Protein backbone atom coordinates (compact mmCIF):
# COMPACT_ATOMS: atom_id res chain seq x y z
CA UNK A 1 0.00 0.00 0.00
CA UNK A 2 0.99 3.62 -0.29
CA UNK A 3 2.73 4.14 3.04
CA UNK A 4 2.88 7.86 2.53
CA UNK A 5 -0.78 8.46 3.36
CA UNK A 6 -1.55 10.35 6.56
CA UNK A 7 -4.18 9.13 8.97
CA UNK A 8 -6.51 11.88 7.75
CA UNK A 9 -6.05 10.86 4.11
CA UNK A 10 -6.74 7.23 4.94
CA UNK A 11 -9.83 8.26 6.88
CA UNK A 12 -11.12 10.29 3.94
CA UNK A 13 -10.59 7.43 1.50
CA UNK A 14 -12.24 4.93 3.85
CA UNK A 15 -15.24 7.25 4.23
CA UNK A 16 -15.46 7.63 0.46
CA UNK A 17 -15.51 3.84 -0.06
CA UNK A 18 -18.26 3.53 2.57
CA UNK A 19 -20.34 6.31 0.97
CA UNK A 20 -19.99 4.73 -2.50
CA UNK A 21 -20.56 1.11 -1.52
CA UNK A 22 -23.40 1.63 0.93
CA UNK A 23 -24.96 4.46 -1.06
CA UNK A 24 -25.36 6.63 2.03
CA UNK A 25 -25.08 10.37 2.56
CA UNK A 26 -21.53 11.45 3.53
CA UNK A 27 -22.96 13.20 6.61
CA UNK A 28 -24.20 9.84 7.93
CA UNK A 29 -20.74 8.31 7.96
CA UNK A 30 -19.16 9.09 11.31
CA UNK A 31 -15.95 7.59 12.63
CA UNK A 32 -17.89 5.30 14.93
CA UNK A 33 -20.90 4.52 12.71
CA UNK A 34 -21.47 0.77 12.64
CA UNK A 35 -21.61 -0.54 9.05
CA UNK A 36 -24.44 -2.96 9.84
CA UNK A 37 -26.44 -1.41 12.67
CA UNK A 38 -26.10 2.29 11.74
CA UNK A 39 -25.55 2.25 7.98
CA UNK A 40 -27.74 -0.74 7.10
CA UNK A 41 -25.10 -2.97 5.49
CA UNK A 42 -25.95 -6.64 4.86
CA UNK A 43 -23.51 -9.46 4.10
CA UNK A 44 -23.20 -8.55 0.41
CA UNK A 45 -22.55 -4.90 1.29
CA UNK A 46 -19.85 -6.02 3.72
CA UNK A 47 -18.18 -8.12 1.03
CA UNK A 48 -18.25 -5.17 -1.34
CA UNK A 49 -16.90 -2.89 1.39
CA UNK A 50 -13.99 -5.26 2.01
CA UNK A 51 -13.25 -5.40 -1.72
CA UNK A 52 -13.59 -1.61 -1.94
CA UNK A 53 -10.99 -1.10 0.82
CA UNK A 54 -8.71 -3.70 -0.75
CA UNK A 55 -8.85 -2.02 -4.15
CA UNK A 56 -8.46 1.49 -2.73
CA UNK A 57 -5.39 0.66 -0.63
CA UNK A 58 -4.04 -2.26 -2.67
CA UNK A 59 -4.12 -4.61 0.30
CA UNK A 60 -5.77 -7.94 1.16
CA UNK A 61 -8.08 -8.04 4.16
CA UNK A 62 -8.90 -11.65 5.08
CA UNK A 63 -12.50 -12.29 6.14
CA UNK A 64 -11.19 -13.36 9.55
CA UNK A 65 -9.81 -9.83 10.05
CA UNK A 66 -12.64 -8.01 8.33
CA UNK A 67 -15.10 -9.63 10.72
CA UNK A 68 -13.59 -7.47 13.47
CA UNK A 69 -13.81 -4.22 11.51
CA UNK A 70 -17.22 -2.74 12.04
CA UNK A 71 -16.59 1.02 11.80
CA UNK A 72 -14.60 3.53 9.75
CA UNK A 73 -12.32 3.98 12.76
CA UNK A 74 -11.64 0.23 12.97
CA UNK A 75 -10.71 0.13 9.29
CA UNK A 76 -8.46 3.20 9.51
CA UNK A 77 -6.58 1.73 12.48
CA UNK A 78 -6.30 -1.65 10.76
CA UNK A 79 -4.75 -0.03 7.68
CA UNK A 80 -2.40 2.09 9.78
CA UNK A 81 -1.16 -1.03 11.56
CA UNK A 82 -0.44 -3.05 8.41
Amino acid sequence: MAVTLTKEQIEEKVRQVVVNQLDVDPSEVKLDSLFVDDLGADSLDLTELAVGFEDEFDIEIPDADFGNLSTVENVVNYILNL
Partner: protein
Amino acid sequence: MDENKKRYEGKIACITGSSRGIGRHLALQFAKEGADVVINYFRNGDEARKTASEVEALGQKALLVRANLAQEDKIISMFKKIEETYGRLDIFIHNAASGRNREAMEVDAKGWDWTLNVNSRAFLLGAQQAARLMPEEGGAILALSSFGSDRVFPYYTSVGASKAALESLVRYFAIELAKRKINVNAISAGAVKTDALNHFPEMDKTLEKIEEKMPYHRLVDPQDIANLALFLCSNEAEMIRGQTIRLDGGITLLLP
Protein backbone atom coordinates in the same frame (compact mmCIF):
# COMPACT_ATOMS: atom_id res chain seq x y z
CA MET B 1 -9.91 -52.21 -15.47
CA ASP B 2 -6.88 -51.62 -13.28
CA GLU B 3 -8.34 -51.17 -9.81
CA ASN B 4 -5.34 -49.11 -8.68
CA LYS B 5 -5.32 -46.67 -11.56
CA LYS B 6 -6.45 -43.23 -10.54
CA ARG B 7 -9.24 -41.91 -12.75
CA TYR B 8 -7.85 -38.41 -13.28
CA GLU B 9 -4.11 -38.98 -13.54
CA GLY B 10 -2.47 -36.30 -15.68
CA LYS B 11 -5.63 -34.16 -15.75
CA ILE B 12 -6.00 -30.54 -14.69
CA ALA B 13 -9.20 -29.55 -12.90
CA CYS B 14 -10.29 -26.01 -12.03
CA ILE B 15 -12.90 -25.73 -9.30
CA THR B 16 -14.30 -22.30 -8.53
CA GLY B 17 -14.98 -21.46 -4.90
CA SER B 18 -12.80 -24.28 -3.61
CA SER B 19 -11.38 -22.82 -0.41
CA ARG B 20 -14.13 -24.44 1.64
CA GLY B 21 -17.37 -26.40 1.60
CA ILE B 22 -18.32 -28.47 -1.43
CA GLY B 23 -15.64 -26.90 -3.64
CA ARG B 24 -12.88 -27.77 -1.21
CA HIS B 25 -14.16 -31.33 -1.01
CA LEU B 26 -14.27 -31.60 -4.81
CA ALA B 27 -10.69 -30.29 -5.08
CA LEU B 28 -9.48 -32.93 -2.63
CA GLN B 29 -11.41 -35.77 -4.27
CA PHE B 30 -10.15 -34.90 -7.76
CA ALA B 31 -6.62 -34.68 -6.33
CA LYS B 32 -7.08 -38.10 -4.71
CA GLU B 33 -7.96 -39.41 -8.16
CA GLY B 34 -4.73 -37.99 -9.57
CA ALA B 35 -5.69 -34.55 -10.89
CA ASP B 36 -3.71 -31.37 -10.39
CA VAL B 37 -6.14 -28.68 -9.30
CA VAL B 38 -6.75 -24.99 -9.59
CA ILE B 39 -8.15 -23.62 -6.35
CA ASN B 40 -10.10 -20.45 -6.88
CA TYR B 41 -11.12 -18.36 -3.90
CA PHE B 42 -12.27 -14.85 -3.17
CA ARG B 43 -12.59 -13.99 0.52
CA ASN B 44 -10.95 -16.92 2.30
CA GLY B 45 -7.23 -16.93 1.58
CA ASP B 46 -6.23 -18.85 4.69
CA GLU B 47 -8.70 -21.63 4.01
CA ALA B 48 -7.68 -21.71 0.33
CA ARG B 49 -4.02 -22.07 1.27
CA LYS B 50 -4.99 -24.88 3.64
CA THR B 51 -6.88 -26.67 0.88
CA ALA B 52 -3.87 -26.22 -1.42
CA SER B 53 -1.51 -27.80 1.09
CA GLU B 54 -3.91 -30.69 1.56
CA VAL B 55 -3.91 -31.20 -2.22
CA GLU B 56 -0.12 -31.12 -2.22
CA ALA B 57 -0.04 -33.64 0.63
CA LEU B 58 -1.92 -35.97 -1.73
CA GLY B 59 0.99 -35.66 -4.16
CA GLN B 60 -0.76 -33.31 -6.63
CA LYS B 61 -0.08 -29.74 -7.68
CA ALA B 62 -2.35 -26.91 -6.58
CA LEU B 63 -2.53 -23.51 -8.24
CA LEU B 64 -4.14 -20.89 -6.01
CA VAL B 65 -5.99 -18.13 -7.82
CA ARG B 66 -7.79 -15.34 -6.06
CA ALA B 67 -10.57 -13.98 -8.26
CA ASN B 68 -13.83 -12.16 -7.72
CA LEU B 69 -15.99 -14.03 -10.22
CA ALA B 70 -18.42 -11.12 -10.45
CA GLN B 71 -15.76 -9.34 -12.52
CA GLU B 72 -15.10 -10.36 -16.11
CA ASP B 73 -11.44 -9.25 -16.12
CA LYS B 74 -10.71 -11.33 -13.00
CA ILE B 75 -12.19 -14.42 -14.65
CA ILE B 76 -10.11 -13.87 -17.76
CA SER B 77 -6.91 -13.36 -15.79
CA MET B 78 -7.62 -16.54 -13.79
CA PHE B 79 -7.67 -18.55 -17.01
CA LYS B 80 -4.53 -16.77 -18.23
CA LYS B 81 -2.78 -17.96 -15.07
CA ILE B 82 -4.03 -21.49 -15.69
CA GLU B 83 -2.72 -21.34 -19.25
CA GLU B 84 0.66 -20.02 -18.11
CA THR B 85 0.98 -22.64 -15.39
CA TYR B 86 -0.43 -25.77 -17.00
CA GLY B 87 -0.88 -24.85 -20.66
CA ARG B 88 -4.27 -26.59 -20.71
CA LEU B 89 -7.37 -27.47 -18.71
CA ASP B 90 -9.35 -30.73 -18.72
CA ILE B 91 -12.12 -30.09 -16.22
CA PHE B 92 -13.91 -26.91 -15.21
CA ILE B 93 -16.34 -27.03 -12.30
CA HIS B 94 -18.31 -23.91 -11.45
CA ASN B 95 -19.09 -24.39 -7.81
CA ALA B 96 -18.73 -20.83 -6.49
CA ALA B 97 -22.01 -19.24 -5.59
CA SER B 98 -23.19 -16.20 -3.75
CA GLY B 99 -26.38 -14.30 -3.24
CA ARG B 100 -28.32 -11.71 -1.35
CA ASN B 101 -31.01 -13.79 0.30
CA ARG B 102 -34.31 -11.94 0.26
CA GLU B 103 -37.95 -12.45 -0.51
CA ALA B 104 -38.96 -11.64 -4.09
CA MET B 105 -40.51 -8.30 -3.15
CA GLU B 106 -37.28 -7.25 -1.44
CA VAL B 107 -34.77 -8.19 -4.16
CA ASP B 108 -32.93 -5.09 -5.37
CA ALA B 109 -30.96 -4.52 -8.56
CA LYS B 110 -27.60 -4.58 -6.81
CA GLY B 111 -28.26 -7.94 -5.15
CA TRP B 112 -29.70 -9.36 -8.37
CA ASP B 113 -26.70 -8.29 -10.46
CA TRP B 114 -24.23 -9.63 -7.93
CA THR B 115 -25.99 -12.99 -7.65
CA LEU B 116 -26.46 -13.46 -11.39
CA ASN B 117 -22.89 -12.37 -12.09
CA VAL B 118 -21.30 -14.82 -9.68
CA ASN B 119 -23.64 -17.76 -10.17
CA SER B 120 -24.56 -17.57 -13.87
CA ARG B 121 -22.41 -15.10 -15.81
CA ALA B 122 -19.20 -16.49 -14.27
CA PHE B 123 -20.21 -19.89 -15.64
CA LEU B 124 -20.87 -18.41 -19.09
CA LEU B 125 -17.50 -16.64 -19.20
CA GLY B 126 -15.67 -19.44 -17.39
CA ALA B 127 -16.96 -22.16 -19.70
CA GLN B 128 -15.92 -20.09 -22.74
CA GLN B 129 -12.42 -19.65 -21.35
CA ALA B 130 -12.18 -23.26 -20.14
CA ALA B 131 -13.23 -24.74 -23.48
CA ARG B 132 -10.54 -22.69 -25.18
CA LEU B 133 -7.91 -24.42 -22.98
CA MET B 134 -9.28 -27.94 -23.43
CA PRO B 135 -7.28 -30.34 -25.60
CA GLU B 136 -8.44 -32.15 -28.76
CA GLU B 137 -9.33 -35.28 -26.81
CA GLY B 138 -12.00 -33.26 -25.03
CA GLY B 139 -12.84 -32.41 -21.44
CA ALA B 140 -15.66 -31.84 -19.02
CA ILE B 141 -17.54 -28.87 -17.64
CA LEU B 142 -19.77 -29.18 -14.63
CA ALA B 143 -22.04 -26.68 -12.89
CA LEU B 144 -23.28 -26.90 -9.33
CA SER B 145 -26.93 -25.98 -9.25
CA SER B 146 -29.68 -26.47 -6.73
CA PHE B 147 -33.33 -27.36 -6.93
CA GLY B 148 -34.10 -23.77 -6.02
CA SER B 149 -33.95 -23.33 -9.80
CA ASP B 150 -37.44 -24.77 -10.17
CA ARG B 151 -38.69 -24.97 -6.58
CA VAL B 152 -39.25 -22.21 -4.09
CA PHE B 153 -37.13 -21.87 -0.94
CA PRO B 154 -37.55 -19.07 1.57
CA TYR B 155 -35.41 -16.02 0.71
CA TYR B 156 -33.81 -17.88 -2.24
CA THR B 157 -35.30 -15.72 -5.01
CA SER B 158 -32.24 -14.38 -6.80
CA VAL B 159 -30.14 -17.50 -6.26
CA GLY B 160 -32.98 -19.69 -7.54
CA ALA B 161 -33.30 -17.60 -10.69
CA SER B 162 -29.51 -17.60 -11.18
CA LYS B 163 -29.49 -21.40 -10.96
CA ALA B 164 -32.25 -21.65 -13.58
CA ALA B 165 -30.08 -19.57 -15.91
CA LEU B 166 -27.11 -21.77 -15.06
CA GLU B 167 -28.95 -24.97 -15.95
CA SER B 168 -30.09 -23.46 -19.22
CA LEU B 169 -26.52 -22.45 -20.10
CA VAL B 170 -25.43 -26.02 -19.38
CA ARG B 171 -27.80 -27.28 -22.08
CA TYR B 172 -26.58 -24.77 -24.66
CA PHE B 173 -22.91 -25.42 -23.98
CA ALA B 174 -23.50 -29.19 -24.01
CA ILE B 175 -24.89 -29.10 -27.53
CA GLU B 176 -22.35 -26.62 -28.86
CA LEU B 177 -19.32 -28.31 -27.32
CA ALA B 178 -20.31 -31.93 -28.06
CA LYS B 179 -18.43 -31.79 -31.34
CA ARG B 180 -15.29 -30.93 -29.38
CA LYS B 181 -15.85 -33.91 -27.06
CA ILE B 182 -16.44 -31.57 -24.15
CA ASN B 183 -19.18 -32.87 -21.91
CA VAL B 184 -21.28 -30.36 -19.97
CA ASN B 185 -23.66 -31.25 -17.16
CA ALA B 186 -25.01 -29.94 -13.87
CA ILE B 187 -25.58 -31.41 -10.45
CA SER B 188 -28.63 -30.15 -8.64
CA ALA B 189 -28.53 -30.80 -4.96
CA GLY B 190 -30.74 -29.58 -2.18
CA ALA B 191 -29.35 -28.31 1.07
CA VAL B 192 -25.86 -29.72 1.59
CA LYS B 193 -24.48 -29.28 5.08
CA THR B 194 -21.73 -26.64 4.78
CA ASP B 195 -21.08 -23.23 6.32
CA ALA B 196 -22.87 -21.56 3.41
CA LEU B 197 -26.19 -22.39 5.04
CA ASN B 198 -25.41 -20.10 7.95
CA HIS B 199 -26.30 -17.18 5.68
CA PHE B 200 -29.96 -18.18 5.45
CA PRO B 201 -32.36 -16.95 8.09
CA GLU B 202 -33.99 -19.72 10.15
CA MET B 203 -31.88 -22.40 8.47
CA ASP B 204 -31.83 -24.83 11.39
CA LYS B 205 -35.60 -25.22 11.29
CA THR B 206 -35.59 -25.59 7.51
CA LEU B 207 -32.90 -28.29 7.62
CA GLU B 208 -34.71 -30.27 10.29
CA LYS B 209 -37.86 -30.22 8.16
CA ILE B 210 -35.96 -31.33 5.05
CA GLU B 211 -34.21 -34.19 6.83
CA GLU B 212 -37.48 -35.43 8.26
CA LYS B 213 -39.08 -35.37 4.81
CA MET B 214 -36.15 -37.06 3.06
CA PRO B 215 -37.18 -40.61 2.10
CA TYR B 216 -33.69 -41.62 3.24
CA HIS B 217 -33.73 -39.34 6.31
CA ARG B 218 -30.31 -37.87 5.75
CA LEU B 219 -29.14 -34.73 4.02
CA VAL B 220 -26.93 -34.85 0.95
CA ASP B 221 -23.28 -34.46 1.95
CA PRO B 222 -20.23 -33.19 0.03
CA GLN B 223 -19.05 -36.76 -0.67
CA ASP B 224 -22.33 -37.52 -2.48
CA ILE B 225 -21.60 -34.54 -4.73
CA ALA B 226 -17.99 -35.63 -5.28
CA ASN B 227 -19.04 -39.18 -6.21
CA LEU B 228 -21.38 -37.86 -8.91
CA ALA B 229 -18.92 -35.18 -10.09
CA LEU B 230 -16.14 -37.75 -10.52
CA PHE B 231 -18.50 -39.83 -12.64
CA LEU B 232 -19.95 -36.97 -14.72
CA CYS B 233 -16.50 -35.62 -15.63
CA SER B 234 -15.27 -39.05 -16.74
CA ASN B 235 -15.55 -40.86 -20.08
CA GLU B 236 -18.05 -43.24 -18.48
CA ALA B 237 -20.59 -40.41 -18.58
CA GLU B 238 -20.01 -39.49 -22.22
CA MET B 239 -23.60 -40.17 -23.24
CA ILE B 240 -25.01 -37.98 -20.49
CA ARG B 241 -24.97 -34.50 -22.02
CA GLY B 242 -26.53 -31.24 -21.00
CA GLN B 243 -28.35 -32.83 -18.09
CA THR B 244 -29.08 -31.53 -14.63
CA ILE B 245 -28.87 -34.55 -12.37
CA ARG B 246 -30.86 -34.29 -9.17
CA LEU B 247 -28.94 -35.42 -6.13
CA ASP B 248 -31.65 -35.29 -3.56
CA GLY B 249 -32.31 -38.67 -1.96
CA GLY B 250 -35.62 -38.70 -3.81
CA ILE B 251 -37.18 -35.80 -1.94
CA THR B 252 -38.24 -33.80 -4.99
CA LEU B 253 -40.40 -36.72 -6.15
CA LEU B 254 -42.68 -36.33 -3.17
CA LEU B 255 -45.73 -34.15 -2.89
CA PRO B 256 -45.61 -31.99 0.23
